[in-house]
């Protein structure tokens, strides 16, 4: 396959970036998208040029590291996958592929296609946990009965890998889907009830402080989420937030 790549190149956070064009040949349909970028980088290194910098780690859709906006969509044109799970068979010979970093004021570009997603970490740190005494007499979580439906919903919310595709897809760069998944995974379980009020208030406050946009309920985040996190989580977080605000 012969392709034309238009890739965002940016030296660092303080310089202006631009799209640069790279023709590439010999790409197989069975290659992953990241392998295709590896081939490109090998060629660039051999020519003495700076390779394209992009985030990756597990390369099996678990870690949430890869974060590319491919032809106008986070993680590319396929559904329920991360960039590392995207295969080149999704493209045709002669295609032009535009590759950009996830765009949000709260995700500043570090270099080329790598963005700083530590704003997600700070939202988690604001309340995305439960306080458990681990000094030796910890109660087995399975000793507390949990409704099957709630357990499943909680697990589904917990599958969020924090990749940031929801923010990248949203026209407002809103982080509501991510934050709501992290609120929901505890809100649905008895272990999460004790700190529920502070959790939702603190996490939403941190989300707003980071400069993410407001949710317009377009549903783009749910469609583009590689883990299929549902919009129901946003409604649940809104309910939790309103209840917590009234309680104080």
């Amino acid at each position, binding site marked *: 396959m012969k392709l034309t790549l238009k890739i965002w190149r940016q030296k660092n956070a303080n310089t202006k970036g631009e799209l640069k064009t790279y023709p590439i040949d010999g790409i197989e349909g069975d290659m992953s998208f990241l392998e295709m970028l590896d081939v490109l980088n090998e060629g660039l290194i051999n020519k003495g040029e700076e390779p394209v910098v992009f985030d990756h780690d597990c390369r099996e859709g678990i870690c949430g590291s890869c974060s590319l906006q491919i032809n*106008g969509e986070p993680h590319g044109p396929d559904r329920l996958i991360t960039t590392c799970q995207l295969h080149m068979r999704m493209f045709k010979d002669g295609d032009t592929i535009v590759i*950009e970093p996830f*765009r949000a004021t709260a995700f500043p570009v570090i270099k080329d296609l790598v963005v700083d997603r530590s704003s997600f970490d700070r939202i988690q740190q604001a309340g995305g946990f439960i306080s458990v005494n681990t000094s030796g007499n910890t109660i087995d979580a399975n000793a507390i009965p949990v409704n099957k439906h709630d357990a499943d919903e909680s697990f589904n919310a917990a599958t969020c890998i924090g990749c940031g595709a929801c923010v990248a897809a949203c026209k407002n760069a809103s982080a509501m889907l991510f934050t709501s998944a992290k609120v929901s995974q505890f809100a649905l379980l008895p272990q999460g009830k004790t700190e529920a009020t502070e959790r939702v208030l603190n996490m939403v406050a941190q989300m*707003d402080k980071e400069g993410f946009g407001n949710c317009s309920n377009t549903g783009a985040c749910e469609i583009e989420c590689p883990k299929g996190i549902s919009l129901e989580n946003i409604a649940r977080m809104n309910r939790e*937030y309103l209840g917590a605000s009234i309680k104080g």
Partner: protein
Amino acid sequence: MGILSSSIARKVAMALSGLFLVVFLAQHFTINVISVINPDTFNSWSHFMGTNVLVQGVLQPILIFGVIFHFCMGIFLEIKNNSARKIKYKSYKGDRNSTWASRYMIVTGLVVLAFLGLHFYDFWFHEITYKYLESNPEDPTRYYPELVEKFRSPVRTGIYCVSFVLLMLHLWHGFSSSFQSMGWNNKYSKGLRAFTQVYAIAIPLGFIFIALYLHFNQIH
């Protein structure tokens, strides 16, 4: 902004003001459709609405506040949202994951707002001038002829019809979205969404029908 300092509180306020306007729209439509069915009843209802102290002194100011609040909050949210992505994508395929109506609420909202300017000029300013500036004697039979006269112009009728199409798109997303903003997403949401979409189509289409009916049924 105090109570509206959080993004969720702002969205809930937007949703509540939107729902209030949706309810008002149904009431407005009910009175207008009467003009087609029975002009005398339309005259008496309009006379009641135009002279009742509760409607004029309490409900009308609340309505005007609702419109201004919904508009100002919409603009404020749009500015906040734009600042959340200062550097835009070179390639962005919003149509792959969301509806046009959901992405362009600000556009449809601004068109509806511009229409409201014309609508206020046509009817509200006219009422104020008639009643308070010119101090004309109250005539309970004047409403229907005045309404019909407004739709004599094909240009004005056309502007009204186009605005109603934009209102349809605004309601298509906004009405159902308001429930999600308030935390309502459960097994009844599918049915509720169907209701909101029927409403979003039926009410503006009804207004278009009324505008065209009045245009083609002028009093000679």
